């Protein structure tokens, strides 16, 4: 036991044995830590690509749970439940697939394809339609909670205009990041009388951007849209590939693994630097490198970065 205590002292605190600087702050230890991170990056990346059943993105986001959570929120507001629509789910799957293929995180694709094109492409004729997007969440409840915390997305979920809903949950690489993408599409069908009108119009409503959305880092451009679109020619209607909405279960969740390792290293460094400042001041230790406060600020910035990078987002 005293040996362990002595070793921890040597590793973490300024002491005679480590020349009054925690061993983990020595240049050799920092270099080793960098080497460990670089080797781990390549090992994890290789395992993720070649052994997906061992290491991959683990999530439990499923359509049924998303529907239950959404209808629960509507029920709390006295609104009727939405019905799952296979056409809207196909439209959502088409949108998810398009986002991965064209690598964008937005309601409208870089080539100008709006969500409504996918909805029409699925054969769903609507008078009202809306779309909510989410990425980086691992449970259905977290996804719906994030939407409910954002005014525009909440308005979609609690809109009395919609009757039907569809979901797509897909894992893939978006903007260089492996992520779980959730597409939620709302709609209400045109009535037969409207469909036979001489000049049919579609009205699509996308979630409104608010100040609260910006605070919550809703990350892309979104505007209050009340689009009155003329019927589009058939060439605009895209076919919607099928995306399975099943939970993915690798042995180890790669995102949790990397996040926990990174957090572990940064928090350990932060504690060591705080202890170093405290002991150097208390014991009036004289050494070449006297103050570590700038290191502490930098490590704190890295800690904040980890939290920013690993959070989910809605759009």
């Amino acid at each position, binding site marked *: 036991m005293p040996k362990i205590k002595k070793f921890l002292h040597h590793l973490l605190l300024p002491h005679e044995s480590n020349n009054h600087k925690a061993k983990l702050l020595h*240049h050799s230890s*920092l*270099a080793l*830590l*960098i080497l460990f*991170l*670089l080797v*781990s*990056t390549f090992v*994890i*990346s290789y395992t993720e690509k070649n052994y997906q059943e061992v290491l991959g993105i683990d999530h439990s986001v499923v359509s049924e749970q998303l529907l239950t959570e959404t209808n629960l929120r509507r029920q709390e507001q006295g609104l009727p439940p939405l019905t799952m629509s296979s056409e809207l789910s196909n439209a959502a799957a088409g949108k998810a697939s398009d986002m991965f293929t064209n690598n964008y*995180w937005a309601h409208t694709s870089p080539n100008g394809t709006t969500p409504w094109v996918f909805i029409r492409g699925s054969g769903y004729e609507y008078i009202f339609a809306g779309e909510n997007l989410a*990425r980086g969440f691992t449970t259905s409840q977290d996804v719906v909670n994030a939407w409910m915390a954002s005014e525009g997305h909440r308005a979609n979920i609690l809109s009395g205009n919609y009757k039907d809903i569809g979901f797509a949950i897909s894992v893939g690489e*978006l*903007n*260089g*990041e492996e992520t779980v993408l959730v597409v939620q599409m709302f709609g209400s069908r045109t009535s037969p009388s409207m469909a036979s009108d001489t000049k049919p119009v579609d009205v699509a409503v996308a979630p409104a951007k608010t100040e609260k959305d910006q605070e919550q*880092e809703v*990350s892309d451009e979104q505007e209050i849209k009340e689009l009155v679109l003329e019927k589009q020619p058939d060439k605009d209607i895209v076919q919607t590939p099928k995306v399975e909405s099943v939970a993915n279960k690798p042995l180890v969740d790669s995102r949790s693994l*990397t*996040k926990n*390792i*990174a957090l572990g*290293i*940064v928090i350990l*460094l932060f504690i060591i630097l705080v202890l170093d*400042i405290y002991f150097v*001041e208390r014991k009036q230790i004289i050494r*070449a*490198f*006297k*103050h570590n*406060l*700038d*290191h502490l*600020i*930098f*490590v704190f*910035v*890295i800690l*904040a*970065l*980890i939290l*920013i*990078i*690993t*959070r989910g*987002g809605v759009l």
Partner: protein
Amino acid sequence: MFAKLKKHTAYYLSLLAMSGIGLYLISLNSFDSELRMVLVIMIAFFYILWGLLHHHVHHDLTAKVMIEYVLIGALGISIVFFLLE
């Protein structure tokens, strides 16, 4: 401790301000991994250069100090690279 803090107030405040700006820019582009990596490298470079300049001004810049800043900066970049890749 407080006397030291007072002596280096401008240095710490400028470091905090630049880091804050960097974090804000990253949070605005939190889903563009290439841009995030570039911003992280820029923050690390600023931290290293600012630290070295600060020690140079106070006439205590040595090779050891230089290596320490480079290593801490490289460690920060490695952690984010590890997380993003």
